[in-house]
């Protein structure tokens, strides 16, 4: 990406971030409108690599926490983001000279761009999730020892909360409850850290990856075969791995229920075409977490799972999934930092009670190929 983010880059960035959402992260239509307008009014966003910045500079990730549906009704103005950063500066007694992403999947890929545009601060090409996850401590920042405190959350009325507690798990617990009181969503600024730390614990080049991905997908013009080629092309040339198509078919079962504020459930896809006779079950909790055939594990969190609409190749988010949809399920090996053993303690399948251990997609595919004995997979 250039050294600035322009208005015209926003649709690409948003598009790429949908794939990195792994079925979660919320619809970003609104954030796109807001961010494009902010760039039109305030000028392009200075965009820099964390590796190129002075180690003493302070930075913080910004995001929106809460319900995307409520955000679509009670729309933020963007000022809430500036307030969150400013109050964090006051609370921590620092000056924040660069912003970064908390999560690169879904609408929060745009939140820091909006904040950077409105505040004139540069945006670092880094985030803490490398995809979308549900909770505040599900970050490489947390996994490698950065404190989420102080965390500041602000709503559209300018009401704010300040959370400072040693455990990042407690920060998440408290913030998740305060978000209801604040009206369903809040902007947050948290994990203040110096660039020296960002370099070590951040996932880098995630914004440029999302942008590149979006460019290629848009060029694929809603043809799912071309979209798949784009995904393979882009991810194979990144620190993520080569995507694999798990099944193509029809959603024949969809179960969604809410427990503890999480959208849990599963869907079953019945195979068609070269996958006829196969069935794939995909389990989700806000994001797609795991794919299995019967008892056999096919792919698991933190590797990414996308359920693509055959009509256009776009990923379908959990909230918008429909029974009878024709889809492809694609798994993408996660960034190596997300697969690190320390990260797996927070986001591994064991954490969700889904599987004993994380097995990388590549390994699962290899055993799959051995079983298939000479079956040559077509294309992907």
């Amino acid at each position, binding site marked *: 990406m250039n050294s600035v983010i322009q208005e015209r880059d926003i649709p690409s960035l948003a598009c790429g971030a949908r794939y990195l959402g792994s079925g979660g992260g919320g619809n970003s239509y609104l954030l796109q409108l807001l961010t494009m307008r902010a760039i039109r009014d305030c000028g392009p966003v200075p965009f820099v690599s964390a590796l190129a910045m002075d180690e003493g500079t302070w930075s913080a990730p910004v995001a929106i926490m809460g319900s995307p549906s409520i955000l679509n009704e009670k729309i933020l103005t963007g000022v809430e983001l500036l307030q969150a950063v400013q109050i964090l500066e006051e609370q921590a007694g620092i000056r924040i000279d660069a912003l970064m992403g908390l999560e690169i999947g879904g609408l929060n890929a745009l939140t820091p761009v909006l904040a950077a545009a409105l505040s004139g601060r540069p945006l670092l090409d880094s985030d803490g999730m490398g995809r979308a996850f549900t909770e505040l401590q599900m970050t490489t920042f947390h996994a490698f020892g950065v404190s989420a405190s102080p965390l500041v959350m602000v709503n559209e009325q300018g009401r704010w909360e300040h959370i400072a507690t040693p455990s990042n798990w407690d920060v998440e617990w408290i913030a998740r409850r305060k978000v209801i009181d604040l009206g*369903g969503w809040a902007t947050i600024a948290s994990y203040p850290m110096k660039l020296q730390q960002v370099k070590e614990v951040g996932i880098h080049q995630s914004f440029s990856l999302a942008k590149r991905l979006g460019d290629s997908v848009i060029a694929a013009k809603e043809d799912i075969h071309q979209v798949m080629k784009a995904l393979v092309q882009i991810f194979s040339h990144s620190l993520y791995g080569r995507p694999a198509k798990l099944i193509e078919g029809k959603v024949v079962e969809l179960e*969604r229920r809410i427990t503890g504020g999480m*959208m849990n459930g599963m869907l079953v896809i019945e195979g068609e075409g070269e996958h006829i006779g196969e069935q794939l079950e995909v389990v989700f909790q806000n994001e797609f977490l795991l794919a299995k055939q019967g008892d056999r594990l096919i792919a698991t969190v933190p590797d990414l799972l996308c359920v693509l609409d055959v009509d256009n190749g776009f990923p379908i988010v959990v909230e918008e999934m429909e029974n009878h949809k024709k889809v492809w399920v694609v798994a993408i090996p996660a960034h190596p930092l997300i697969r690190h053993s320390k990260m797996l303690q927070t986001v591994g399948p064991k954490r969700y009670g889904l599987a004993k251990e994380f097995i990388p997609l590549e390994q699962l595919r290899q055993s799959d190929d051995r079983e298939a004995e000479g079956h040559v997979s077509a294309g992907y």
Partner: protein
Amino acid sequence: MSYRIGIDVGGTHTDGILLDAKYQVIAETKCATTEDVSSGIYQAMREVIAKANVQRDRIGFAMLGTTHCTNAIVERKRLNSVAVIRIGAPATLAVKPLIGVPEDLREKLGKYVYIVRGGHEFDGRQMADLDEAELSRIADTLKGKVDSVAVTSVFSPVSKDHELRAAEILHEILGDQVSISLSHEIGSVGLLERENATILNAAVVNVAKTTAQGFMQALREEGIEAKVFLGQNDGTLMSVEYAMKYPILTIACGPTNSIRGASYLSGLGDALVVDVGGTTTDIGVLVNSFPRESSLAVEIGGARTNFRMPDLISIGLGGGTIIRIEEDGSFKVGPDSVGYQLTRRGLVFGGDTLTATDVAVALGKTQLGDPAKVAHLDKGVLQKVYNRIVEMVEEAIDRMKTSADPVPVILVGGGSILLPDEMKGAASVIRPEHFGVANAIGAAISQISGQVERVFSLDELGREKTLELAKQIAVDEAIAAGAEPGSIEIVDIEDVPLAYLPGNATRIRVKAAGNLSVKTEPTLSN
């Protein structure tokens, strides 16, 4: 005993039907849809009355499904002069109303746009006091400038207080001749989409008035004093008074009517409906006697709304679809069509264009026109064309099915004579009587419904009790709209939890529908 007339406007034909009180078909007719739409409606109405030959004073109801409002929006013609008021500041200020709407539409509708203080939270708490003084000031400046106002308040699907109060203030200053559209009557959660729908509604109020009054006048001229209803996109009716207030709800009632008509004629509640017209084939899904709805946002005239439309696939295949065969035997099916000119331009009717209908006649699949006029054609190639036509429908059927198991398929629409009695994916192929006017029958037999869509907190009452509460609200709404209490059933229920938020906030949508009560007068509050 009381008769009813049903009229449905399609792209090619306007169909009319007259039913007795037991819903038996007394007469049916098909007229060409006219450019002004209205004269086609009047024509169909007169024809069906003449054919039925029943006592005119015993025609008690007239149901109309029309495309007037859709056309007005798509063509950007005959739109009202509109003011747009959003209640929600300081939230929402960064995204102005009509953002993302095509420029020509925004120019027409975006002359008077205001955002005032007020609105609610998702749990019904007030976000800010309603700025009544500002509303009065706005009303003063609007005097004489607009004839319709759209009011949208943040979280009005949860609490409608601020919208109702705003309507009071506006009416007081602007008088009753200015119509006021309130968003909580129109859409669900999702501010921009609901607001767009409300603005479009405000824009077509006059079109709806003219249409409904013209129809009633035409009926009176025929000596008929019938109670008039308009079809809604969910397959139920609304009184003409309500339709004049909320005309946007008539959008896309056409496909719904034919799906509902197919259900009634076949006696099936769960099936696929294939409606073959002159130019296109619509494939929809019947669930519980109602069309399955799409959960995706629908664009109307380029504006995003959160309307629920029937989940349909439309393919470019109809009775008039033009078939082009090359010398090497390769061929192309449509997508263009001769449309209503089929009976002039089709080969079997003495015309010069090879159509899908000609192919079916040549192969003996159906009898129509003069088969001798297509006897010279190469049957081998025609068979390939026919196979492709059937395949196109089979592919569409496969896409709409929920499971791999075959399902019953109901064929309706004038063009359905093209299709065979056996198709892949179809457990059985049903061709009901009067299949050609299923849409008009759907309009005539429509029920009255009540609906609720809100965000509920399940923590207070628990899931079961909350669902019961929502059902009761929907039933009450249906009764208020004029449904026979004993006949009301819950026809649709959906609860989607809001992700990323504790407290079990869930969006619940319930629809109840019942037969039109012959005794009670429907009231304005739907």
